[in-house]
């Protein structure tokens, strides 16, 4: 009960922050629309339009960027003060960071599921038609991982600004090498081989295989890896989170 109350407060805190709300609701749609519009001429009238491609890749990117929301929900100046009170209270420290993970995750799941459904049914972006639930699951896991990773970075760095600026780098790096912005195969065989190391590439490939080939071979490995990575992040949180650092 107490934990849920903390999580509810954290959730409301995110809702009260217009920038966070905007970046998790309207921003992905704007990105899809813009990238799709700008690259329209590169795609033909085949069964995948520019909107279909960037619909998948920009959702992946936005879902990963929920890391920023997580770091913000955890250690923004205003939230920090409330955290200090909780540290004084007889509450296990796990409840403090788990509530941030839960609130970010709930927000992310809700908004990205709605975005995917709006995309498919209102804007006719191809998210797999009847296979949409699987894409929902994939994005859901991605959001969970992002929430855990962002919170972990906060625990490790102990500072919101550091955590968010540093965690942006691997996201950008893996996205660029995972084919979010352009196809890596255009850079030759070596780079294409390197891109296999990027988790983002596998997420994209998994999504495209589900949507265009009805091929679910990658779904379980990818979702389980994301889930495993999330648990690993939570463990690191427990090990590195030092509430006493807050008080100074």
């Amino acid at each position, binding site marked *: 009960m107490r934990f849920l109350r903390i999580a509810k407060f954290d959730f409301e805190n995110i809702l009260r922050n217009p920038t966070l709300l905007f970046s998790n609701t309207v921003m992905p749609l704007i990105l899809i629309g813009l990238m799709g519009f*700008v690259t329209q001429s590169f795609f033909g009238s085949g069964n995948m339009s520019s909107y279909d491609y960037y619909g998948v890749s920009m959702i992946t990117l936005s879902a990963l960027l929920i890391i920023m929301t997580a770091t913000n929900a955890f250690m923004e100046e205003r939230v920090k003060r409330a955290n200090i009170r909780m540290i004084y209270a007889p509450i296990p420290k796990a409840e403090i960071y788990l509530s941030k993970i839960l609130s970010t995750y709930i927000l992310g799941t809700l908004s990205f599921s709605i975005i995917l459904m709006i995309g498919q049914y209102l804007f006719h972006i191809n998210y797999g038609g009847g296979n949409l639930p699987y894409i929902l699951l994939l994005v859901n896991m991605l959001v969970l991982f992002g929430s855990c990773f962002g919170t972990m970075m906060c625990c490790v760095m102990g500072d919101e600004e550091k955590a968010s*600026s540093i965690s942006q*780098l691997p996201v950008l790096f893996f996205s660029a090498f995972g084919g979010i912005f352009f196809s890596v*195969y*255009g850079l030759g065989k070596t780079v294409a081989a390197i891109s296999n190391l990027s988790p983002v590439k596998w997420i994209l490939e998994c999504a495209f295989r589900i949507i265009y*080939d009805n091929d679910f071979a990658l779904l379980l490995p990818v979702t389980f890896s994301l889930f495993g990575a999330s648990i690993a992040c939570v463990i690191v949180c427990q090990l590195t989170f030092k509430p006493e650092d807050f008080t100074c």
Partner: protein
Amino acid sequence: MLNLIRNRFLRIPDKMHIMIIAVVVMPLFIGAAIFFSGHFTNVYKVAFISDHAISFPKSKSIQIDKINERPATSSLAMGKYNAFVEVNKDGEFKVTTLKGESDKKAIQTFFEGGKLPENNKTEQRGIGTNILGFVLMLALMQGVALTTFYPEDRNNSTFKRILTSPVNSRQYLAAQGIFTFICLYVPTFIAIAITKICFGVEIGFGLGNLAVLLVILASLATAFSLFMASIMDRNISLGTSGISIITCILAGCFFNFTGNIKVLDVLCNILPQKAFMILIQAVENGRAFQEFAGQLTYTVTWVFALWLVGSVVTNRRIKKGVY
């Protein structure tokens, strides 16, 4: 004011991560981007699906993999192949691609006649323009991280204390601006210059032109970050990144596009990045700066406008007693 600038530099160790990102990681990113953009090939990767051995003339701009079975459609989506070509019973080639109509025709022509039609590709933008477009976006996003001392001073009430000394807010902003500008300009210039000189990557500009263009670019990023740091209270970095990405795509920093929507066209033309992109493209094509005085003035006007608005907002808040 000199003291203020010195103070910024003295506080660098406190923000080591930001400096490392700005001075080490970003230049590496830029270097990698330049390096790879030189390798970006416009080769069609075609999967030829046939049981029979048919040989085709070799061409530099088309690469054919012969396979027996049709690969997954998702390999088209991922860009592993640009097209599938199949032969039907009548011996006709059927091209399946996600690319545009002209590309489809080009591939079809190659398989039928053994030659790609000449000039089938639309005119490409120079490497230099693409690179500076990318750098512009990075600079706009990085600028606000380098301006972090200003919001921090406000939050800690240091700003209030500074204002009780014989320094006014305009001087404070100027000092912060100079710091941001230096930290943006120097690493970026060095990164591009090193990749050009040491790795011999052709970037389309001479070092002189590059130096001048980067001054404009870094000033724009500096003014924008001061503006954003002045008008926003929290989530400055997130807000700035969002605005930078959207406006840079719209201004054609990555893809040159022509839209058919009037409102959007007008909107794009208002953006300072658009004027800057026109300018660098012209310079890369060997035109003189003077010919594009209009674009130059327009960009500089934006720099001053952003600076001015940021300064006015700060002043008004000081008078209201917000800080």
